[in-house]
């Protein structure tokens, strides 16, 4: 197989890639200026996503031979980081889309219908959403109640989804369900549902503290289609090998972007204070020095996580192991904790000017968005999973060095 999500560029050159440059430009010129209204009106960041479409970024992960850019996970992580600096909502929608694409790229190559879909995704720059949670399973995405019902070469499924982010703006939705009506709750598959063949009936609204622009309403989803759209591999494998590690690396990347912008505001604030009284170091400067070192830790953590996943990407032994699951869980826990810590420290530095909504140093939206990181897949659930791994996993003391 040719390069699929493989590391293609070194970290030093990644920011110079034309596609990453395009993401930085979209962040600066489009996503940033729109961020306030996206947040205030809890509306979909349409202009940002349209700009990504125009730049072809929605098929960044699709292999070159299918018409895509054939970029690596690390390249897309850099784009998430870039967008996250300007508008966390745009970055989150972009990241969630790329997570679905990664699942197709890595698990749909042997399925002609999925390969054909990927070509269409490139041509039409289709936006993919996902419906993995279900009413009645208590947030456990590895359990489904609804089932794929096959009749001949057609399938049908009905799912009560408590959230489907930007469902109404999407072109397709990846839906998890039990393999068949007689399958157990954990015997799941993931199905590619064309929105044109799905009926969405809203069951809840989305008026939240942060990440307001992801428009994560709940729906009853009734779908049908060609049974060839069911990914043949068990969802358990798609999840552990691709969906979960891609989600955790791309989410932490956009949180890193958000944190970087918060620190940027604190830096700008301290510089402005210093200019007012040349010769005296502003009182917050030492706090800023501390903050910059915390941000450096966060950066290293995220970039290391991306690199570790890229290295393990084609090694099923590693990917299906508990050590890797623990590492990816830890990445999500650390990232979602550090982003709040960093935004909070930046707020303390900017003081009342960070607290205000109407100041150039405002951190209100950053703070509200950052708080969502620990809740979207609740950290307690992830800690529960990690703690059960730790009941059996042995520490490898020989794993020293970079």
């Amino acid at each position: 197989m040719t390069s699929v999500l493989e590391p293609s560029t070194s970290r030093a050159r990644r920011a110079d890639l034309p596609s990453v440059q395009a993401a930085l430009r979209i962040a600066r010129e489009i996503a940033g200026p729109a961020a306030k209204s996206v947040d205030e009106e809890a509306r979909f960041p349409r202009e940002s996503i349209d700009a990504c479409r125009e730049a072809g970024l929605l098929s960044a992960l699709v292999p070159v031979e299918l018409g895509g850019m054939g970029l690596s996970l690390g390249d897309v992580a850099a784009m998430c980081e870039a967008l996250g600096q300007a508008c966390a909502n745009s970055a989150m929608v972009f990241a969630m889309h790329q997570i679905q694409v990664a699942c197709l790229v890595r698990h749909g190559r042997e399925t002609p219908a999925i390969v054909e879909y990927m070509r269409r995704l490139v041509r039409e720059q289709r936006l993919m959403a996902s419906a993995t949670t279900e009413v009645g399973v208590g947030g456990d995405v590895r359990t489904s109640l609804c089932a794929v019902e096959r009749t001949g070469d057609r399938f049908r499924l009905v799912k009560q989804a408590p959230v489907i982010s930007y469902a109404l703006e999407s072109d397709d939705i990846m839906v998890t369900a039990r393999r068949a009506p007689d399958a157990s709750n954990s015997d799941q598959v993931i199905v590619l549902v064309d929105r044109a063949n799905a009926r969405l009936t809203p069951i809840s609204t989305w008026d939240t503290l942060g990440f307001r622009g992801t428009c994560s309403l709940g729906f009853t989803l009734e779908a049908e289609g060609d049974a060839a759209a069911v990914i043949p591999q068990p969802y358990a494998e798609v999840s552990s090998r691709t969906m979960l590690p891609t989600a955790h690396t791309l989410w932490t990347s956009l949180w890193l972007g958000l944190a970087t912008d918060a620190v940027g505001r604190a830096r700008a604030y301290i510089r402005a204070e210093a200019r007012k009284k040349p010769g005296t170091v502003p009182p917050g400067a030492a706090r800023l020095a501390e903050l910059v070192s915390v941000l450096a830790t966060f950066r290293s953590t995220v970039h290391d996580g991306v690199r570790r996943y890229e290295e393990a990407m084609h090694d099923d032994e590693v990917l299906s192991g508990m050590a890797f699951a623990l590492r990816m869980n830890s990445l999500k826990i650390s990232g979602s904790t550090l982003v709040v810590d960093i935004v909070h420290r930046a707020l303390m530095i900017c003081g009342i000017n960070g607290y205000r909504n109407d100041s150039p140093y405002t951190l209100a939206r950053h703070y509200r968005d950052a708080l969502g990181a620990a809740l979207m897949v609740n950290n307690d659930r992830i800690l529960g999973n990690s703690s059960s791994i730790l009941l059996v996993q042995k520490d490898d003391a020989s794993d020293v060095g970079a």
Partner: protein
Amino acid sequence: MTDPIRTALQQFGRLAVPVETLGDADDLYQAGLSSHASVNLMLALEEAFNVEFPDRLLKRATFQTIANLRAAVGELTSAAA
């Protein structure tokens, strides 16, 4: 003679079907084995056979079938002997 692997599965596997109905090569995940239950199953096997599963065996394939579990336990007990 009872099979300690099947006994542990019955007790901790939380399968959707009775263990007696499963062959050694049947897919335990399709029978409803969750990753959480697989951890408990491993703890029970470690206790029953007085072994520790090394990290290289802490993967999905080890728990896919009764045959795989038997092979893993067999390898660990013969190494300990």
